[in-house]
């Protein structure tokens, strides 16, 4: 085994569409599974990345299809470090959303249909950092490694 760490597992760019996000998620899941992540923990990463990337498509590019999103995955000793970069609209207040759990009352008509994204992300990551510089946004999410046995 020549496991040099840190090591780049994936680096790609894709368009701001939900179809391209779906394809990218397949590649992310494959890359982390190939790096030994167990199936449950691989799905956790795919889920958090789905939320983060769909947010970029919906909120930062407001469903314009011509945005470009750059993604890279680094394998570190105890974690995966995943970076998302793009030059679309920044986060409101240049801050990460709080990710409070959406309030579920008991009236079916008032049930929330959205607002779960950042709650799920925060439930599944080690931590998140966001920076905005010269029109570029970077969101870095870190996930624990959970090897399959």
């Amino acid at each position: 085994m020549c496991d040099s760490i840190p090591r780049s597992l994936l680096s790609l760019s894709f368009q701001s569409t939900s179809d391209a996000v779906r394809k990218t998620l397949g590649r992310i899941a494959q890359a982390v599974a190939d790096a030994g992540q167990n199936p449950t923990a691989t799905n956790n990463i795919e889920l958090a990345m789905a939320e983060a990337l769909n947010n970029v498509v919906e909120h930062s590019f407001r469903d314009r299809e011509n945005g470009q999103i750059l993604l890279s995955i680094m394998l570190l000793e105890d974690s995966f470090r995943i970076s998302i970069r793009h030059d679309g609209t920044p986060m409101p207040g240049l801050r990460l959303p709080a990710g409070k759990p959406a309030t579920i009352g008991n009236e079916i008509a008032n049930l929330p249909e959205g607002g779960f994204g950042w709650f799920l992300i925060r439930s599944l990551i080690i931590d998140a950092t966001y920076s905005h510089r010269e029109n570029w946004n970077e969101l870095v999410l870190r996930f624990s490694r959970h090897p399959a046995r």
Partner: protein
Amino acid sequence: MNLSSSSVGATQIITVEEARIDAAVAIQFKDRMREVSDGGPARIVLNLRNVDFIDSSGLGAIVAAMKQLEDGRTLDLCALTPNVDKVFRLTRMDTIFGIFDSVDDAVAQSNS
């Protein structure tokens, strides 16, 4: 977005014939649910056996499908795979839907 539908007694079983309910198909899913459930019986069971990935957009689409039903109609869920079950648990949406292990369990419930 393929859905198939069958009836067992007074229950309509709608089976999702896709592996993913995600942002790419959420709106389609909601629209197809409206078409397939239109004019059907009071109780619908959504069979999620084939679905191995759902994100918050897909979850929102299932909630929307329930909200668009006429008064007095219900939407229960069955056969959630582990990844799908997890999203309902983490978001606490497991408290909102009747959730059954299988189509058989869901149907048995309506007879009891």
